């Protein structure tokens, strides 16, 4: 993640200093129900999940570009040495091949964990994902399926990623019945959700917030454990406004909730959606029935972004409970910019302002 350069600024002007991250990672309490824990950052929690999988499932294989030496984000460090080159291996540079190959591995009955190097590069594989993986079980009358396939990809803004290292493409896949799309906010969540995706008998896409790979550190259980899919988590209860997000943006909203309490006396309920598809309509609606106000926030562009689906469903289900129009604080309808990132992202000030408007509606 981007880090503020402090100390000797004599040879640098103010404009040359890179900005601090737009959020502060807030670790969850140490879980007690899953056994002994170890300090891990996000990429280490991913490695741990993959290690557990390769240990318990002899059919499991991990593949993609550069995974053999440990991966460009170090998620697969040590696994090839530990489990063998037939189980952790590089593929040629070809996303449609990586996913197509992964579908074939899954169809043959083995556990396939495919890595796409950046979510921004998942599009060559769109046909294989949408036309093939998602539809395999349905179109074959349940004779064949690729439920054993999990696709992992780094996701979201990172401070300097620009157009092609910052994208959040979950909305493209949310429109595709047959897929599951999951996004964790932290190391503990990531390991449990990834293990659920791997165990799930449907093809899953698991987006990993790259800005959290090193910045997010928690005490993560060493043993395998699962966190259920399609169950949103209420991180803090509140009575006035429901805030919904996923991934990195959760940490922004947690801070926004504090700001709203402190400066406006407004009590916010913060929900981590976690699974984008199929999403937990019940938890979100239950919350909006209570609070009457909803704010959804994501980095992806606002038009056609997943907030529009949530907004549409909530107004159908909770129309009479709403005290104000549903607010979406999202990226603008532009490609993800480089130098303009601080202006582009849905930061805590934009979210705070949106809450103010809803309260005063």
């Amino acid at each position, binding site marked *: 993640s981007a880090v503020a350069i402090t100390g000797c600024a004599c040879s640098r002007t103010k404009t040359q200093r890179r900005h601090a991250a737009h959020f502060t990672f807030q670790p969850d309490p140490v879980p007690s129900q899953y056994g002994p824990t170890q300090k891990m950052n996000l990429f280490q929690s991913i490695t741990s999940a993959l290690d557990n999988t390769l240990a318990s499932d002899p059919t499991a294989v991990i593949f993609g570009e550069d995974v053999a030496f440990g991966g460009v984000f170090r998620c697969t460090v040590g696994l090839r040495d530990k489990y063998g080159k037939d189980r952790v291996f590089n593929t040629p540079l070809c996303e449609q091949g990586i996913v197509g190959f992964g579908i074939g591995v899954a169809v043959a009955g083995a556990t396939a964990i495919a890595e796409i190097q950046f979510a921004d590069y998942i599009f060559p594989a769109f046909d294989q994902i949408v036309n093939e993986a998602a539809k395999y079980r349905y179109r074959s009358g*349940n004779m064949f399926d690729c439920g054993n396939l999990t696709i992992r990809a780094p996701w979201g803004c990172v401070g300097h990623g620009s157009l092609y290292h910052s994208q959040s493409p979950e909305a493209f896949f949310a429109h595709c019945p047959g897929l599951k799309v999951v996004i964790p906010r932290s190391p503990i969540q990531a390991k449990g959700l990834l293990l659920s995706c791997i165990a799930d008998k449907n093809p899953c896409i698991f987006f990993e917030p790259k800005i959290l790979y090193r910045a997010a550190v928690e005490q993560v259980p060493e043993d395998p454990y699962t966190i259920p899919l399609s169950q949103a988590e209420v991180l803090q209860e509140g009575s006035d406004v429901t805030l919904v997000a996923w991934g990195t943006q959760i940490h922004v909203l947690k801070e926004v909730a504090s700001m709203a309490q402190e400066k406006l006396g407004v009590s916010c309920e913060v929900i981590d959606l976690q699974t984008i598809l199929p999403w937990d309509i019940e938890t979100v609606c239950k919350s909006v029935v209570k609070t009457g106000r909803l704010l959804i926030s994501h980095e992806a562009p606002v038009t056609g972004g997943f907030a529009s689906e949530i907004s549409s469903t909530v107004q159908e289900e909770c129309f009479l409970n709403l005290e104000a129009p549903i607010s979406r604080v999202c990226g603008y309808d532009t490609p993800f910019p480089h130098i303009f990132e601080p202006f582009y992202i849905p930061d805590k000030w934009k979210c705070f302002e949106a809450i103010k408007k809803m309260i005063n509606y």
Partner: protein
Amino acid sequence: MLCLLFLGPFFATATMRLLINNACIQSFQVLQLQQTFDSSLEKPQFPGASAEFVDQLEFIQPNVISGIPVYRVMDRQGNIINPSQDPQLSKETVLNFYQKMTMLNTMDRILYESQRQGRISFYMTNYGEEGTHIGSAAALDPNDLVFGQYREAGVLMYRGFPLDHFMAQCYANADDLGKGRQMPVHYGSKDLNFVTISSPLATQIPQAAGAAYAVKRENTNRAVICYFGEGAASEGDAHAGFNFSATLECPLIFFCRNNGYAISTPTNEQYRGDGIAARGPGYGMLSIRVDGNDVFAVYNATKEARRRAVAENQPFLIEAMTYRIGHHSTSDDSSAYRSVDEVNYWDKQDHPISRLRHYMTARGWWSEDDERSWRKQSRKTVMEAFERAERRLKPNPELLFTDVYQEMIPSLNKQRESLWRHVQQYKENYPLDLYEK
């Protein structure tokens, strides 16, 4: 090591030694891992390629005039050319080949007609390509996994897929193993190891590579075969599949049916090189071109490719040259882009079924009487299955909503309930009588 690829025309011998040796490529890979760079040597030190330096500027000429030769066993009249290549299959086996090819042909005629009469929505025939199906299917093990494109019904037929199941899928009736979800000819069979096909072309190619990789790790001596046409071979997925299978050392046979057309697009608009077989060496893959209308040539090539693919864990590329005698599908009228004379040539002068029949009659294995009574019997069998399929109800509309995920999800369940409420209210507008309850 000999790497003849870059030194002029491909060698042109008419025997099985057409498989371009990739041993030089294998040894190069070993070399790369051990390489230390030494600039005192005059040999290239690049990690990406070895070979020698050359000081003459010369572009390698792609050879399309006398390219990779076509392996065959029988001439167009069904006579064995080189007796050492006759697989010498038993009379029973050869009769079975013939009966499967002709049964497929009969089924095609009847189902094509049934589409014309509005009984089924769509159909694709296999006319002229029966030899590619039966020859290759016969060379495989029943446990070998098949990934097809859409014109390989004979492979399923050879493996014993019942006529009732072919018909059920085309009629999308309640007996369809696919539960009525796909257009006609999108067959699949778990029991017969034939993965359900899908309409997008070439998507099966990298999938076959993945399946072969998984099958290799199982260590059960299974192979995977992947069929596609010369048109589909232009897709990016084909490039992906070829490259992955070679680099990841998969026991896989790529079987390309080069039938001259991709709908209306002839091969000279599909590619400019020497067909599909010539691409194999580019991937480090052993490749061969065969006469697809010669069922024994197809059989021999597939059998040897299968044996070696499993023994050596590497992919093989077979390009079976053939001709699509029928239209692309019932939505196509090929007289718009090719002459009746051209089609008649293949139908009358170079057809896999007639060539095999000549082979059989020359041995006294098949007479005019046999032909007459078999034609009558196969037609009767197909018609009976056809009539059964016609009478059958369509599947329960509940099946619209299942198998999207392994489990039913709440939001979809709500949609299902809302459809039922709606249909109850407006039932006279929905053809409920045609469907199972």
